[in-house]
């Protein structure tokens, strides 16, 4: 199998604007989820993780200047600003230019600029920007990518699927570098929907906890640059190994009752990577903290015989960031591997699944060489992806 390296990464969340900054916050056990009362988002109080708008604007103005752009900050939507900031940080030391024919931008998002529907009558932005391809075009044009971006919109597995799709494209030889970016923002659109599903937790979410009451939403971006070229001068490399996608074929919103299908994706991703399940140092699960999702995942991990492997969810740190989650969480996995730390699973007090999974309650210090990332989403989709350090 042709090697695909993860050569740089970025995370933007309530906890900071860089991957290392976010990792520091995770190590100190900080959470970005707070109780907010913002009428624009909901008439109710919400436990939600929001990016610092002032800091975002300040950084974005700098980026405009650095790139000698003539556009005003007001030309860009909130999500466009976050994506541009995230990509910009991840590609700053890239050995090739975005306009190289062998470089592709892969974008993962569930709802894109959906907030433009809320004020579509103000005509502040061209209504076309609500299309995901128009959002991708803004990012593409900003950096001058030569190729048309690949856009993945596959519910909550979008981010992991984007990494899988990008690594497959690189292995096929069509491209040498893929800039994989994912983003979604907090909107009334999404919040009201999850409220109608009675899926939101009144307090910060508690993945895999016995008393979990639902999910917390969040917003953010993540970018990971993949390349077939490991770069010079590094002594260790993070490889993106095999990945697999499956479907429950059971219900469009309720997860599988058995976890068999996620387990199938896990087993295939390990097989695809040529790795035994016993080699996995930790699993970063989806872990939304809804009663049924977490139960399904516990069953799947246990079916794949990884009941003793340390497992965490990052949703307790920055909430469920939808199309961004797979990229932010994978970037945090990469940080984990670089630091040789398995971050604790925020929000855990008492495991809801003793004997089925081994949820990490305190940060573990140990060599971290092989990690498994999983995600599951509406539409019954599941994805699994393996990372390895050499």
């Amino acid at each position: 199998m042709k090697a695909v390296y993860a050569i740089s990464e970025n995370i933007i969340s309530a906890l900071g604007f860089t991957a290392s900054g976010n990792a520091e916050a995770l190590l100190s056990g900080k959470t970005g989820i707070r109780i907010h009362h913002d009428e624009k988002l909901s008439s109710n109080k919400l436990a939600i993780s929001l990016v610092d708008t002032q800091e975002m604007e300040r950084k974005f103005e700098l980026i405009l200047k650095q790139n000698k752009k003539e556009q005003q900050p007001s030309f860009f939507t909130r999500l466009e600003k976050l994506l541009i900031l995230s990509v910009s940080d991840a590609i700053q030391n890239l050995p090739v230019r975005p306009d190289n024919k062998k470089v592709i931008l892969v974008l993962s998002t569930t709802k894109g600029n959906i907030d433009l529907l809320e004020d579509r009558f103000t005509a502040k932005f061209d209504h076309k920007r609500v299309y995901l391809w128009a959002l991708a075009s803004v990012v593409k044009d900003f950096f001058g990518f030569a190729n048309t971006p690949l856009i993945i919109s596959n519910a909550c597995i979008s981010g992991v699927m984007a990494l899988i799709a990008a690594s497959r494209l690189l292995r096929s030889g069509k491209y040498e570098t893929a800039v994989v970016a994912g983003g979604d923002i907090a909107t009334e659109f999404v919040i009201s929907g999850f409220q109608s599903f009675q899926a939101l937790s009144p307090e910060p979410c508690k993945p895999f906890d016995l008393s979990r009451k639902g999910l917390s939403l969040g917003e953010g971006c993540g970018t990971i640059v993949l390349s077939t070229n490991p770069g010079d001068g590094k002594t260790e490399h993070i490889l993106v190994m095999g990945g697999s996608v499956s479907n429950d074929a059971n219900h469009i919103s309720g997860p599988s009752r058995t976890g068999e299908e996620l387990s199938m994706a896990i087993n295939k991703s390990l097989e695809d990577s040529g790795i035994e399940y016993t080699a996995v140092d930790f699993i970063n699960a989806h872990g939304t903290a809804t009663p049924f999702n977490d139960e399904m995942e516990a069953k799947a991990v246990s079916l794949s015989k990884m009941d003793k492997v340390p497992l965490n969810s990052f949703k307790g740190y920055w909430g469920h960031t939808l199309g961004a989650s797979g990229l932010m969480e994978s970037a945090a996995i990469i940080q984990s591997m670089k630091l040789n730390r398995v971050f604790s699973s925020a929000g855990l007090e008492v495991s809801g699944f003793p004997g089925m999974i081994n949820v990490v309650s305190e940060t573990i210090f140990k060599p971290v060489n092989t990690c498994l990332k999983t995600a599951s989403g509406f539409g019954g989709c599941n994805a699994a992806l393996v990372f390895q350090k050499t």
Partner: protein
Amino acid sequence: MDELINKLKKEVITQLNLEDISEDDINPDSPLFGEGLGLDSIDALELIVLLEKNYGIKIEDPKDGKKIFHSIRTMAEYITEHQKKA
């Protein structure tokens, strides 16, 4: 009560898009979920919206839904009881 039951049947058919089912097909005492009309978890959430929208009744804990939405009759009884209170 019978009037409310008939009204509810119509509302449930519309709200849940039960296109090929007529009011006569619904026995007010038959279970709505499982065997009965084959409703699922999204339908249960949709019935919560129906009670709020059409009757101004809010169900805070979705777990209560199981009893309330057992059948058309239990729904009607719940509505009668809670509208009196208001």
